């Protein structure tokens, strides 16, 4: 059952083969058993969760079910959920019980989905390994000595370890796709503006976008049907007609033009990962797709541009955490300045502070033009690269991450090496384009572990339904997405 698709689970619920309470309890039991090791969830509230499951059963019995009614979903701890501790992975918000719901949470509530709990994440979504979380790292379910990726590491591990039916994530520079790649499941970052950011704790406002993390493209499509939609409370939410993201799943791929950017296969890409991606492309050829060589010449600049823009926005977004109205206030202080400086020094972890300092620096007097303005100009060049590319192809493919999951602790002391994890994902955030990661096989590590590899699919603006179609067709002829780590054996022998 834990491996069943959302569609199957919905059918089982509709046919009364199982109740939402039973389904939810199955996951809660599994969380009880595995979460102490994996640390995917950082807030659980069985009473609240089961109350939602009971309400879902009533709704199903009354015949008002939606496709996600009664389905247990893990929520990244970046979404404010009323009455839930919402920490964003930070000591700063260790005791913050959200007094309101994020738009995404409301959408799931309205659909009758069950909130299983809040998942671990890099602090304020700043990280690519989940190691910056105040609440400890998360184990990659494929190999507990490795990281799940980040920042949505808890949601990633929860999906991979089948600790939820599906999960939500957010992606500012790759935080859905890189962990999806490292943990072997399907994740989608929609076009910027498709999912409301209201109630989603801001990291870098112009780049942050929420999306689904699930076992298949089809599941992602069903999740998107709930998550996407106009919200007047977010000025950047796009007012578009409601879409059914499942509508194109079954279209054949004959004649699909796949662009392969040469920059995504250059130096820096792990050879094992490269091989898996090549095999995946070969599979697409069999499905009737055509391959087009393209170039995204400014790809290399996406990291420097990102590490100006994201910290700049973050330094300002995180100024509200001052210990005055909520969040951490230092225990002892002499005056206002002392209270500010200590509360923030204690409440934020090292990586968050680093980014606040970088952001403060690049915006400070005399540097704005050289850094912020310059980065915004190159951002346009990067977006123009994609615009040119999409004149030649329908989707762009490549790796989602340069390597498979790395060992915990391996990159913590080298921020620049950590930042390079997002080399293939960041440019889509800068352009505002949708991107996804789809399981495409395994690569064996030096220590003999078979680790998942994700194929990245980048679409043009608002092409999510087509990307899901492209992924779904691949998942009809491969079973990489259906593979799950065997967690019933003792750790280390999986």
């Amino acid at each position: 059952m834990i491996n069943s698709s959302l569609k199957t689970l919905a059918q089982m619920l509709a046919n009364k083969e199982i109740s939402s309470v039973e389904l939810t309890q199955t996951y809660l039991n599994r969380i009880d058993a595995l979460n102490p090791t994996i640390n995917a969830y950082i807030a659980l509230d069985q009473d609240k969760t089961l109350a939602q499951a009971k309400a879902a059963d009533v709704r199903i019995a009354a015949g008002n079910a939606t496709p996600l009614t009664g389905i247990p979903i893990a929520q990244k701890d970046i979404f404010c959920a009323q009455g839930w501790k919402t920490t964003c992975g930070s000591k700063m918000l260790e005791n913050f019980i959200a007094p309101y719901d994020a738009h995404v949470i409301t959408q799931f509530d309205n659909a009758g989905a069950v909130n299983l709990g809040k998942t671990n994440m890099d602090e304020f979504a700043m990280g690519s390994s989940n190691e910056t979380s105040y609440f400890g790292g998360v184990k990659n379910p494929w190999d507990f000595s490795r990281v799940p990726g980040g920042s949505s590491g808890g949601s990633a591990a929860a999906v991979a370890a089948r600790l939820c039916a599906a999960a939500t994530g957010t992606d500012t520079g790759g935080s859905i796709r890189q962990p999806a790649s490292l943990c072997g499941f399907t994740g989608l970052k929609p076009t910027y503006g498709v999912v409301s950011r209201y109630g989603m704790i801001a990291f870098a406002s112009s780049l942050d976008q929420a999306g689904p993390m699930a076992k298949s493209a089809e599941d992602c499509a069903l999740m998107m049907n709930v998550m996407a939609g106009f919200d007047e409370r977010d000025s950047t939410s796009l007012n578009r007609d409601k879409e059914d993201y499942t509508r194109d799943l079954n279209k054949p791929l004959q004649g699909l033009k796949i662009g392969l950017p040469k920059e995504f296969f250059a130096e820096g890409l792990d050879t094992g990962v490269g091989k898996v991606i090549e095999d995946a492309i070969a599979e697409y050829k069999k499905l009737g797709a055509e391959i087009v060589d393209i170039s995204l010449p400014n790809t290399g600049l996406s990291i420097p541009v990102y590490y100006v823009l994201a910290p700049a926005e973050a330094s300002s977004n995180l100024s509200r955490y001052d210990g005055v109205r909520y969040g951490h206030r230092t225990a002892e202080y002499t005056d206002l300045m002392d209270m500010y400086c200590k509360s923030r020094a204690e409440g934020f972890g090292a990586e968050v502070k680093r980014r606040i300092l970088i952001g403060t620096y690049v915006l400070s007097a005399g540097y704005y033009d050289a850094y912020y303005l310059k980065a915004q100009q190159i951002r346009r060049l990067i977006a123009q690269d994609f615009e040119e590319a999409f004149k030649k192809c329908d989707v762009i493919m490549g790796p989602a991450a340069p390597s498979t999951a790395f060992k915990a602790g391996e990159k913590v002391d080298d921020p620049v090496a950590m930042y390079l994890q997002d080399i293939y994902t960041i440019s889509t955030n800068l352009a505002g384009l949708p991107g996804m990661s789809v399981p495409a096989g395994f690569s064996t590590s030096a220590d003999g572990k078979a680790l998942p590899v994700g194929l990245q699919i980048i679409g043009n603006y608002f092409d999510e339904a087509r990307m899901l179609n492209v992924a779904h067709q691949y998942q009809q002829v491969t079973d990489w997405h259906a593979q799950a780590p065997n967690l019933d054996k003792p750790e280390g022998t999986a």
Partner: protein
Amino acid sequence: MALSTEDIKKIAHLARVEVSDSDAAATLSKLTGILGLIEQMQAVNTDGIVPMSHSQDVVQRLRDDVVTKTNQREAFQKISPELGNGSKEHAVDSGLYLVPKVIE
């Protein structure tokens, strides 16, 4: 751009983050690496390129001037921090948030 620990402390002060001297030194080496990465941008000629703030070319939507919010002071002040300096009380009094005396 070479930074000094003095610069780090100045930036940290602007950002209201306390850093000790030893922290400043450690932070300096990491920030220098990151700024080195950022410096790659300077090689690009961006003359005449319009900066990009948003990915979609859309304009600000306007909200009708109608009151939609109700008083939620009680709920919001339940999550106020502890006062500190020995007091475990919430940092609120008579509906006001309490902070160390503000001097102009």
